[in-house]
């Protein structure tokens, strides 16, 4: 019996040592090759578990700051622009909407809402809401979903600053610089 148990112990010992050696060899060879197993064809295997499309509001830039593309993008210097300023036909309605919501849209209420007013408003919001990561979570259609000054600004921007001059003409019946179009088309000239 004693001899039998010795054999059994020896056999078990061989199995354990053999297993350890095999694992060591396996670990060594796999680390030597430094080749991880080939990954699956794609990280996302099932679209139901895919990352949701990002949240993107066009009045918040990709870095999380409030942002409106400048309306006057003429290739003119600041003095020339100031001498003949351009106004988005939707700005007055935007200004009224923002004022109703409690924002001071115009510094001088007797004047037309201008790019200067808009830039000041955007700068104020960026001071008021400095958390860029939180701003990035504001949805594309923020109307009714965001509170405070940011909510007022975005609601009014989404309602008015996405409108084309043609849409403003159709809404108000007031012609503007862009609609109805001047159609006396001349021939194209070389690029500047």
């Amino acid at each position, binding site marked *: 019996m004693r001899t039998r148990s010795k054999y059994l112990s020896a056999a078990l*010992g061989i199995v354990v040592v053999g297993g350890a050696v095999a694992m060591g060899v396996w670990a060594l060879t796999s680390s030597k090759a430094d080749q991880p197993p080939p990954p699956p064809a*794609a990280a996302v295997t099932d679209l139901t578990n895919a990352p949701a499309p990002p949240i993107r509001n066009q009045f918040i830039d990709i870095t999380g700051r409030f942002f409106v*593309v400048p309306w006057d*993008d003429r*290739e003119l210097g600041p003095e020339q622009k100031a001498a003949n300023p351009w106004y988005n036909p939707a700005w007055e309605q935007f200004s009224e909407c923002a004022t109703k919501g409690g924002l001071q849209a115009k510094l001088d209420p007797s004047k037309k809402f201008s790019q200067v007013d808009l830039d000041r408003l955007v700068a104020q919001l960026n001071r008021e809401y400095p958390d860029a990561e939180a701003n990035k979570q504001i949805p594309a259609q923020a109307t009714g979903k965001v509170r405070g000054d940011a909510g007022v600004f975005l609601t009014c921007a989404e309602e008015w600053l996405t409108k084309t001059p043609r849409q403003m003409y159709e809404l108000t019946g007031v012609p503007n610089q862009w609609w109805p179009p001047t159609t*006396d088309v001349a021939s*194209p*000239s070389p690029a500047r």
Partner: protein
Amino acid sequence: MERSDRQASTHPPRRHGGIAILAGTALVSIAVLLLLMRTSPTVKAYASGRVAVLAGTSGTVSTLACYDLPSPSRPHPLLGSSYNDPFPPCNMTDSNPHDGVTGPHLGTFSAPTDIQASSGSGVIVQLDYLPNDSNGVAGGYAIAYEQRTGCGSYDPTSAYWNGRKVEVDITHYNRLSQQLNGQSIMYEHVNPDNSVVGTNSGNATWFRWNNAYAYQMLWPPYAQQLLFNNTGLGGWSIATVAQPKSGAKDVGCSTGAHLHQDATSGEYNHSQWWSTSGGGTYATARVSDMQYVTMSGIIGTAPSNQ
């Protein structure tokens, strides 16, 4: 006696068996741990890296619109310290952002560039130097929508037609489906393809893109809509170059068919677009590096301008 013999004879093997089982369990645990280490993906995070936005169309670079001369000044990359670099990094928030040699030329983001091209030429979004390794960019989402501006709001029937302005936003994900960062590119003087370009961000559609050379792509083939990081191929066709009307110059907008493109946190690829004879050089759509963009969380491999 027989009973005590059996007890005496069976105890030692049981002890050995217990040790063996313990050892075996430990080995199995180690093996499982090793397996987990090999199969659980982890990625490294990087501080920042540079990728390239490629030329959206083919043509001669006619304007690098934001020169910022004379400050900051630094030696020309090709001609040495006797010459100022004409295209240092353009910072749109500095005190003198639009002092281009050929006249002021406003860009929305940084490093605004004009490429002269025939009207109707395709405008294609493409990136390069995305990191392909297991810690890199697997793919992401992209969206395109119109932004409203004065010059971009004339009707195509108007004598002042200047094309439209389209913003493209691209977000980058790693192979764990974690969002790393994002960038925006602005294309101007274009006819948008409204089957892919929204009239605003609220009605635009997100498209799924894969890094063509990723260690592991983000999307399975059936879900992939775009391929980026694939110089000369793939990309995203969003518009064609518009033909501005000659009247546009009467109102201060640009004329002549060309593509204006600029990018967030972008720098010019100045070493390529500067010609020692003074003229612009030819850029090829989806091939030429137009802007270099510094992005957080990745180790991009775009060449340095420094």
